[in-house]
């Protein structure tokens, strides 16, 4: 090989070696699956859970408002889009003091909040307190009243009332 050709080849080789090598664009893609399970559920909160009707002159105070009015309530529901959740109440009996009774349907309530409604306590059939369509958290309140009467026997009366929230 002549000196001239060797020189040219060497210069060409050096030029090639010094030429930056462009990197090709590249990427990788992967798919991630995300799952979530949501079940139907219902949660009822009432506060306070005990109310008291104080003694009062039937000519002066009638009906008697509960000392604890206003009672707050919150119904939290997860249900299908068209599902109707219901809140009902059912007393376990009349107000009892020993052998004396005050008819439970002398106890009434008023209500505020979307979906809540007023009513009268009963011990034979559950009474509607509220109803809603679909999922959500519904807040409301109750004010309770006892019809007063000179016919009541003296005593300390009590009874339990069961509230039931149902989400289909």
């Amino acid at each position, binding site marked *: 090989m002549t000196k001239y050709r060797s020189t040219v080849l*060497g210069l060409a080789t050096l030029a090639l070696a010094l030429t930056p090598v462009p990197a*090709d664009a*590249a990427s990788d893609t992967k798919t991630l*699956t995300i799952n979530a399970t949501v079940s139907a559920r219902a949660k009822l909160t009432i506060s306070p859970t005990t109310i008291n009707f104080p003694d009062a002159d039937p000519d002066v105070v009638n009906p008697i408002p509960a000392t604890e009015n206003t009672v707050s309530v919150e119904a939290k529901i*997860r249900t299908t889009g068209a599902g109707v959740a219901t809140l009902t109440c059912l007393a376990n009996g009349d107000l009892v003091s020993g052998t004396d009774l005050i008819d439970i349907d002398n106890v009434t309530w008023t209500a505020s909040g979307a979906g809540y409604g007023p009513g009268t306590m009963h011990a034979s059939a559950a009474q509607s307190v509220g109803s809603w369509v679909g999922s959500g958290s519904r807040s409301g309140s109750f004010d309770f009243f006892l019809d007063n009467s000179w016919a009541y026997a003296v005593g300390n009366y009590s009874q339990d009332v069961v509230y039931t929230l149902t989400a289909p």
Partner: protein
Amino acid sequence: MGYLVWIACRATAARLLVVGRGGQGARLAAALALAAMWVCLGPPPAQAGPLTLTITGSVDFPDRSPDIAPVIGPDDVTVDVRSLAAPGTPWVLTIVADADLTSGTDAIPVGNVSWTASPSPPFQGGILSAVVPSVLGTGVSHFTASLSLGFYLQNSWDYVPGDYSATATLTLSSP
């Protein structure tokens, strides 16, 4: 392409060195050959890529009471990230959802899903989007890491019962 040039470079430099040593008056050729050899003795230019992602697991949020678990998670996923492009080449890892989490006609906004990332840096946490890819991390090659992602779901009483699903696409790219 770069690899072939490197091979040719070494071969030619080697031949020039032989010619330079054996030929008369070819000291210049030999010097050039030695210079080329010095350049060519470096490691071959890495082939563009490979960039590889490997995902282990899926994200599965269980049903929980919103009052007890206002945020569900973390549910962990491991992603092996490898960027073996030419040293110094930048890489970026992104994530984007295909849509909201859906169960029939019901939907949970995908923006209710967020994640934390480890190691951080170079990786970072964020909130999932179905509109704009979110950056999971950036860096330069060569780079390998085992990325741990912890996913979270904002819980709510407003969700309709169902089995929800969505997919998210992770993309590792290098310009």
